[in-house]
């Protein structure tokens, strides 16, 4: 079931865990659908549904408040919790961060999101956002092959080598602090 728009703005960005793909030049990209290249300060999500141009009325109906649309999959994604190893089914978003972050071409971390945000029980989809912190274990491949230095040249964000520390210092607010649980 989808709830309604509250009309009450939440002040300050919402935090969520997510994955990025790292290019050889040290840019962070969305790893799943779009390969969108992130900037350090402000990124706006776009809907890449083919119906956006061909069936504009239908697209508008699915996106009454723009991107992200409730009945679409668009927007920047974030999770309330770190995926547990038991949840990791081999799909990209369910990869175990302690095993995969920094190991190959992916980095796990947190993003800040704002604008229109659709809050789900496991995470959210958002209109705008930026990288907030990255989790790169010591000795990981991207720190040894020089890509981490390139990443930090593009994105002045904290890099944390302990997953526990990442969680304790940057954990997302979750549904309760956003007031969604009480209203749902």
């Amino acid at each position, binding site marked *: 079931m989808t709830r309604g728009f509250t009309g009450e703005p939440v002040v300050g960005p919402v935090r969520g865990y997510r994955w990025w793909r790292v290019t050889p030049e040290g840019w962070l990209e969305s790893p799943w659908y779009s390969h969108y290249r992130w900037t350090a300060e402000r990124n706006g999500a776009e809907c890449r549904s083919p119906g956006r141009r061909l069936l504009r009325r239908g697209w508008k109906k699915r996106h009454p408040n723009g991107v992200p649309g409730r009945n679409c999959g668009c927007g920047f994604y974030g999770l309330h919790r770190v995926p547990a190893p038991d949840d990791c089914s081999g799909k990209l*978003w369910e990869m175990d961060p302690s095993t995969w972050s920094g190991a190959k071409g992916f980095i796990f971390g947190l993003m800040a999101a704002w604008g229109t945000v659709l809050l789900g029980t496991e995470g959210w989809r958002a209109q705008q956002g930026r990288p907030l912190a990255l989790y790169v274990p010591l000795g990981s491949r991207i720190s040894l092959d020089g890509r981490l230095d390139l990443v930090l040249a593009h994105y002045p964000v904290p890099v944390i080598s302990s997953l526990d520390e990442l969680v304790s210092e940057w954990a997302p607010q979750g549904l309760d602090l956003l007031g969604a649980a009480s209203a*749902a």
Partner: protein
Amino acid sequence: MRIGEIVHEVEVLPDEEPVLLPEPQPEKPAPEMEPETA
């Protein structure tokens, strides 16, 4: 990535410098009404 069941839609304001609101001004007494002339 699944975000689960959508339970809420919110508008989130980005990080912004705090904006000082102007101090409230004391209310001026309402001017006395002049009697209407008939």
